[in-house]
């Protein structure tokens, strides 16, 4: 179990306290006032609130000025109408107002993600600005609301600049403390998971929308407090605080300071204030320079000032070199499934899929498919590419609802239920394309899964270290998977095999009653393949497993039942031996009978060499896909590329077409090395590429599709087909 010591846990708090004490004298030295110091702290509070949503959850808001402004207006109006001289109650009540409004707005705009979300927040800021500016009866319009009172606390009059600074600083420390608690809580860890991979978090059983709404409201309230403070600081609330440019400046402060650090935004706010105050003395165009600095940071240092500091300090005090190698791990063979993963009293049919269908536009992806998975069995789902296996997985696990049919888990219908609920009812899955939290450690990847199964997953206050049982379970799961010793390595740093294993572990960590594995062995090396299939076997002794796999021999070897799919339909189901003996299944895999060999290798005599691959290597991230691939194609030859899924066949073709750049090696075509050339140039040399799946342009007519292919060749010396010729060819094919 890894716990942080209290002293390092709350280090940010100490740093902030010292900085806050030093700020007024430092401002004095620079010839600035205590008011400027208060201003910097207020902006720091606002940006720290904004960063909870931007940096931690990945919701980039261009409209937090809205909350800043609403907080300010609410506090001002509440003071004016109900509490003449009071300051504390107006601020508290304004927090309530912001919380209520941001809940409604959040429900609406959090329906969209990514860029759309950002644009909606931008529109929100524009809307609030026009309301603030135009609704003069309430907001004072252009003049704003003046005559606010700071009041006093006991004998201390807050009109004194230093006294007010102390109040602001104390609120700042309190906000930082709250944010630290939130960030270190189970809730805070889920926020980061959402930023890294929202889909995976959903399938781990987290109701992502609720987390996002909660963090949006919290972030808005914190920023709103800052707005209220600014109102009392200047005795005035105006529409400027809700303007779009101000929202942008807040975001700029976050980016310049550094969004992946809790104090980064505060550094950015201080930078902004100092820049404005000091630069504007000798140039009225300080915003121009600030804009340039902002763009510079986005382009060259996305982790901000804090990131620059971290890089520099790494240079002076280098960390011990750590090799991110799978070889460092300790593997214990033959461990039993950890006790906490054993499902309770399960018997009979666990999963029952009955007559499920799904259409995508005109394509019938799955039609009337049925299968059952019983307790203690490995059930294999096999079939050629495009048979609908993964779509069936998606329907069962709730990625999208089926058009018809029922899915029952332990007798309860789950079709149409959101995926995070399905996960809690006991169904977990892995993904065909590795799907994990790339920026988080292996340990954190798995811990998130186990945490999702406990009620404390919503706790936003207790420290993550105060749950020893979750940590103990995580350690046990890591040991079972054979990942001990490398648990601190980030998911994205792992080799492909390691990532597949973590993906499997994430599914297992959901304590499922039935486990869906989508090609867990694809792309694994032989030794790893053996080890992972042993793991699956030992899991399946207790948890029923539904597995999609193209390694037919192996999967028929260890499954109890097999369902074969073809073209969206279930072809047959039965014991492995029946499936092996079935003629229809054989036909799918090897064609009707054994065709007579009509071609043969022509050998050296065949004609000149057209294409040559020599020791070509290609990677997707850390995954080594092509390993010293070598190949010859001669004139007059048809060369077939065979191999199971994940063997690298498509990648080899994409490398040839220039769509995947090779890391090393030679691809010789027509006497030239074309390795690494851009795809259009390769195509112009005369290499055509027909992709797997549909490579055509939907929404354009057949003639337009064909015309596109002609276009590139027209300008070249290479063969140019007329429209009539390509049309006749396409019709004869159809």
């Amino acid at each position: 179990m890894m716990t942080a010591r209290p002293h390092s846990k709350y280090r940010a708090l100490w740093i902030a306290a010292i900085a806050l004490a030093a700020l007024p004298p430092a401002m004095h030295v620079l010839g600035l006032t205590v008011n400027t110091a208060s201003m910097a702290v207020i902006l720091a509070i606002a940006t720290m609130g904004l960063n909870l949503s931007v940096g931690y959850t990945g919701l980039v808001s261009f409209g937090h000025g809205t909350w800043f402004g609403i907080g300010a207006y609410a506090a001002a109006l509440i003071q004016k109408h109900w509490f003449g001289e009071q300051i504390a109650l107006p601020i508290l009540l304004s927090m309530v107002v912001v919380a209520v409004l941001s809940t409604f707005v959040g429900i609406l705009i959090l329906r969209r993600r990514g860029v759309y979300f950002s644009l909606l927040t931008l529109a929100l800021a524009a809307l609030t600005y026009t309301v603030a500016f135009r609704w003069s009866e309430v907001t004072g319009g252009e003049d704003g609301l003046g005559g606010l009172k700071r009041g006093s606390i006991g004998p201390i009059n807050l009109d004194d600049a230093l006294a007010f600074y102390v109040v602001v600083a104390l609120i700042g420390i309190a906000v930082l403390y709250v944010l630290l608690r939130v960030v270190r809580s189970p809730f805070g860890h889920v926020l980061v998971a959402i930023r890294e991979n929202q889909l995976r978090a959903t399938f781990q059983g987290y109701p992502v929308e609720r987390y996002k709404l909660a963090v949006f409201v919290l972030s808005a309230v914190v920023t709103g407090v800052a707005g209220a403070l600014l109102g009392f600081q200047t005795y005035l609330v105006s529409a400027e605080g809700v303007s779009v440019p101000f929202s942008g400046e807040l975001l700029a402060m976050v980016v310049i300071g550094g969004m992946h650090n809790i104090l980064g935004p505060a550094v950015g706010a201080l930078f902004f204030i100092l820049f404005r105050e000091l630069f504007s003395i000798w140039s009225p165009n300080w915003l121009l320079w600030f804009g340039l600095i902002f763009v510079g940071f986005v382009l060259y240092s996305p982790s901000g000032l804090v990131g620059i500091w971290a890089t520099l300090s790494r240079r002076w005090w280098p960390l011990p070199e750590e090799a991110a190698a799978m070889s460092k791990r300790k593997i214990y063979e033959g461990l039993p499934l950890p006790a906490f993963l054993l499902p309770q009293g399960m018997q009979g049919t666990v999963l029952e899929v009955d007559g499920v269908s799904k259409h995508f536009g005109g394509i019938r992806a799955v039609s009337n498919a049925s299968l059952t998975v019983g307790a203690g069995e490995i059930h294999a789902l096999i079939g050629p590419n495009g048979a609908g296996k993964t779509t069936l997985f998606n329907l069962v696990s709730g990625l999208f609802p089926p058009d018809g049919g029922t899915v029952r888990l332990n007798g309860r219908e789950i079709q149409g239920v959101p995926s995070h609920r399905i996960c809690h009812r006991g169904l977990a899955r892995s993904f065909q394309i590795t799907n994990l939290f790339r920026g988080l450690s292996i340990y954190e990847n798995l811990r998130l899964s186990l945490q999702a199964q406990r009620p404390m997953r919503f706790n936003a206050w207790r420290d993550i270290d105060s749950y020893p049982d979750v940590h103990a379970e995580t350690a046990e799961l890591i040991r079972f998977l054979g990942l001990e010793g490398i648990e601190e390595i980030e998911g994205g740093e792992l080799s492909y095999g390691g990532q597949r294993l973590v993906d499997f572990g994430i599914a297992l960590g959901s304590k499922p009653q039935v486990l869906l594995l989508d090609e867990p062995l694809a792309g694994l090396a032989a030794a790893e393949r053996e080890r992972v299939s042993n793991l699956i076997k030992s899991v399946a002794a207790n948890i029923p497993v539904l597995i999609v796999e193209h390694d037919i021999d192996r999967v028929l070897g260890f499954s109890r039942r097999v369902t074969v799919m073809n073209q969206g339909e279930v072809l047959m189901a039965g014991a492995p031996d029946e499936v092996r003996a079935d003629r229809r299944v054989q036909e799918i895999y090897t064609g009707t009978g054994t065709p007579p060999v009509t071609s043969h290798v022509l050998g050296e005599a065949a004609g000149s060499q057209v294409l040559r691959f020599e020791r070509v290597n290609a990677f997707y991230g850390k995954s080594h896909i092509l390993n010293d691939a070598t190949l010859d194609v001669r004139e007059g030859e048809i060369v077939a590329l065979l191999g199971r899924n994940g063997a690298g066949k498509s990648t080899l073709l994409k490398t040839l077409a220039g769509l995947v750049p090779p890391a090393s090696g030679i691809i010789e075509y027509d006497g030239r090395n074309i390795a690494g050339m851009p795809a259009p140039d390769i195509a112009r040399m005369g290499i055509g590429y027909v992709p797997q799946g549909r490579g055509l342009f939907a929404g354009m007519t057949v003639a337009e599709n064909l015309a596109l292919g002609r276009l590139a060749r027209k300008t070249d010396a290479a063969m140019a087909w007329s429209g009539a010729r390509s049309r006749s060819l396409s019709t004869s094919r159809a």
Partner: protein
Amino acid sequence: MFLLEQVVNGLVLGGYYLLIALGLSLIFSVGGVVNLAHGAFYAFGAYASVEITKYLGFGPAVVLSPLAVALLGILFERFLLRRFYTADPILSLLVTFGLAMIAEQLIRILWGAAPLSATIPPSLKGSVIVGNFLFSRYRLLLLAVVAAVLACVWLLLHKTSFGRVVRAGIQRPDMVAALGIRLQPYMTAIVMLGVGMAAMGGAFFAPITIVHPAMGAEIITVAFVVVVIGGLGSFWGVVIAALLVGVVRGITIHFAPAAGEASIYVLMFLVLLFRPRGLLGERIEKFE
């Protein structure tokens, strides 16, 4: 009757939004780049036309200023946007936001913070009476210009090989490359076209709006609202949305002048409530 007049005024307003939103949507769809600096090109277009009008008159100004801004667009695409086609769209959002900030300050330095006024030649002043209605001559000209631009862009996208490549590139850039077509020059052309249209909007509408440094920032949010309402990647979606926004705003201003601006955003939130991808939007994975 009165309402009908407001509808026509709304259409003029919608056409004005359309010139800016269409280019924005094209750059967005083809390059995957959210260009928050688009408003800046609109502002440059307006300022350039005011400047050129002083020396050469109105006619040359509305032609030369979009051309000049389109040339500026080449630099913009070559040296900045190009880095972001494959990057996280949020990055391009941040960078172009910073650029918009810089552009606004540049305008303040070059032309000052005070608003400028643009004039129209006397021959375009005055009104036309159609039946019971009184229409300003200049506004009718604007409608005609927008309609012409719209027709040209539609023909370009749907009837030329250039348009075929662009539409294919929106869907499957990798397959376009595998067909031997380099998308880069097309992207440069699309950015030129997009910012050129924005500048044209600035030049033509300068006389009936106020030319001031923040004009770009003001139009950009409205333009995005139009794109969001219409839906990404859809030509007609943007057209319908622009006109709808213009008309709704025109009618609201008639009944409650102060709520004119707000009505646009309320309309957007309403549309999103019922059609999360906009009126005619398609699902484009990288923007989700």
